[in-house]
């Protein structure tokens, strides 16, 4: 019995996330597993059985059956999948509402700008973290731009593209959201586990797409407060190749300096 519940609680290979929302994602993933593993095995089993059982062997003079229709059977395997699909949809619908919920008053709101090929994180007080990776060596994390945020609080991210389509993606958040010129995308994230998480652009955006990485540094709220208080308004922390921009505050309103253009 214990083993059985152990099996039922399996994540079917999915990693566990670090946010309050990821719970819904994993529930849904498990639910899909409960349906698809037995169905997959059933269909595969029927195929294997049919092939092995009805295979023609040498000296076999069976006559093949010549039936063609069996309406009750056909109706059954139309209706049961319809019901299953409806159930999956029901669970999905309620999970979706939780995952996409937006708080009216988030604890922190940060703007995330993507450009070819780096990130800019703008805080309410005007503090800016900006940077691109080292294009020569993907094995170093030194120069990556860092998104700092508090744990156990609702953080609202406003994702904006300064040039082409990018996607904000952090594996541990179990979440992707696109940065599309002309579209305002906002989502909430509430990370329960402080730590350092790698993130990466997840939509082909040109030559150095693979290098468009960043780090998320999630701190306990008190620690975050201390960090935030230490960041003077309109300061810039640069990283990577855009070190030229150090100390140039005008950049906040001119992302074009980094992408070459904002035309799209």
């Amino acid at each position, binding site marked *: 019995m214990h083993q059985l519940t152990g099996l039922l609680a399996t994540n079917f290979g*999915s*990693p566990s996330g670090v946010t309050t929302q990821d719970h*819904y*994602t994993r529930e*849904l*993933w498990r639910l*899909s597993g409960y349906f*698809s593993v037995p169905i*997959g095995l059933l269909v595969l089993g029927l195929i294997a059985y*049919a*092939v092995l059982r*009805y*295979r*023609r062997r040498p000296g076999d003079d*069976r006559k*093949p*059956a*010549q*039936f*063609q*229709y*069996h309406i009750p*059977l056909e109706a059954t*395997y*139309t209706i049961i999948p*319809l019901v299953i*699909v409806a159930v*999956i*949809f029901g669970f*999905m619908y309620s*999970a*979706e509402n939780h*995952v996409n919920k937006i708080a009216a008053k988030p604890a922190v709101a940060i703007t995330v700008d993507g450009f070819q090929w780096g990130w800019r994180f703008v805080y309410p007080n005007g503090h800016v973290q900006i940077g691109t990776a080292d294009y020569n*060596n*993907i*094995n170093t*994390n030194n120069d990556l731009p860092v998104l700092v945020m508090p744990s156990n609080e609702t953080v609202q991210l406003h994702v904006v593209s300064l040039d*082409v*389509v990018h*996607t904000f*993606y952090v*594996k541990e958040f*179990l*979440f*992707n*959201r*696109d940065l*599309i*010129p*002309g*579209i305002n*995308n906002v989502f909430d994230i509430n990370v329960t586990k402080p730590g350092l998480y790698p993130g*990466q652009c*997840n939509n*082909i955006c040109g*030559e150095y*797409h*693979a290098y468009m990485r960043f780090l998320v540094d999630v701190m306990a709220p008190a620690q975050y407060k201390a960090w935030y208080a230490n960041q003077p308004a309109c300061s810039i922390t640069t990283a990577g190749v855009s070190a030229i921009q150090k100390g140039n505050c005008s950049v906040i309103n001119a992302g074009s300096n980094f992408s070459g253009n904002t*035309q*799209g």
Partner: protein
Amino acid sequence: MTLLEQRTSITFEGHEPNLMEIVPGPRPHGILKYVTSTDHKQIGLNYLITAMIAFGVAGLMALVMRTQLIVPNNHFVSENVYNEMFTIHGTLMLFVFAGPFAFAGFGNYLVPLMIGAPDMAFPRFNNLSYWLYLGGFSLLMAGFLTNNGAAQFGWFGYAPLTEAIHSPGPGADLWLAGIGLTGLSGIFTAVNIITTVFTLRAPGMVMFRMPIFVWNILVTMFLILLAFPVLTSAFAMLWIDRHLNGDFFRAAHGGQPILWQNLFWFFGHPEVYILALPYFGIVTEILATMSRKPVFGYKGMIAATLSIGALSMGVWAHHMYTTGAVLLPFFAAMSLLIAVPTGIKFFNWIGTMWRGTIVLNTAMLFCLGFLSMFLFGGITGVILAQPVLDFQLHNTYFVVAHFHYVLLGGIMGGLGGLYYWYPKMTGRKMSEKWGKLGFALIFLGFNLTFFPQHDLGLRGMPRRIETYNAGMGWNFLNELSSIGAYITGVGVLVTAWNFFSSWRKGEIAGDNPWDGQTLEWACSSPPPDHNFEALPPIRSERPVWDANHPDMLTEVGH
């Protein structure tokens, strides 16, 4: 009636009908025949061979990519070359190989034969379709010869990355023109095949006696007519943006990049079924013949195909769940619903094998490969159809694994079709020994390549990245995947060798080597010009079987 009865006196086993020459005198052969022929069989072969060449070229690109990814922080090719590789690999595989191989190659060759027609409705138009298609293939390849290289933005070329300012140079234009030409070719083929099916069916061949393959091709052709013009229009708009300073997709000038995504996927999802349905048809034919049974649930099968076609027009935004700009529940519900007719097909396939006498030859093995892989790809499809799960898995290697299972499942069916109809096309069989070896290598290699990619996706590896950090936990799985790709490559070589060497040396097959059921087995192998000298009476959807096995007719009722 008397006419029909007279016809039954023809025996169809081992019988060699006299060739019916319409035009007396010498006929073109060799290269001249290849260039000028309006015969649907020759054009079908042209498509099949050209598509296989495209498969080889795109396959080499896949091996370049897998070699680049075999270890982290690799510098086998540069970023730009890698981006060219996946863009042209995907484009060739979809627009030049997988689609045309089935709907234009097998479609051309088989549809007239299966409905008892002498040729396509518009034979010269058919010839033009092929040359447009070859032109498209050439333009796509020509991108590599230009100074900025071929297109580098992926097969769905999201604006504004495709705008002149971000993708300068003729590579992107050649990509637009190349796909545009293959699209036009597809539209022409669709017009041709639809007309053929509606007007050239033999007496007795009513719609509900057409083989499932013909039904699936017919629905595919309607999908082409609905989808490709939208793609062509989107390409025209992008061309205007690139060269005439248009603003369709340029946000800074009031354009809407998201419009591109909607237009593209409005084409793109039906395209997925344009790629899949013909292979469903191929597999259905092979399963029925090799089990020596009628297709189980024939009419339900057709209903399933029609509803897949209809639903596929309303699910495009499931590729755009993460844009935050689509109505999630609607597209999720429609996408999940497609699982139902697909499931019906699976059970019908099982029903077709049930209580048959199954011949487990290479063609049948490839069909089983199709069934198992498509099943798996279908299940991961139901997972990705749920927006919440897609938020997690979107654009990761999980998606790469999913669509390769679906597509290569289809290709397995296509290879089965090659083994199955090769005797009809050449009069000879492909070697079973090499065939089984090729199957084993491809099946093993394929699963080794793509199964680990599900896990890679769950571990957060994005698609379309040229290299990756060594500390992400992706190294071992990528290594497995690359080794699998090399094994697949060997399997493809074995199969190709079998294909070409059997052309002259294969075992003589005779007209109806598999005890086939549908009309193409009623003419000689290869069929003469204008196909049929005489037709058996068509009283069910398997006229040749009825003629050869009057004691084993389809049971009526249930």
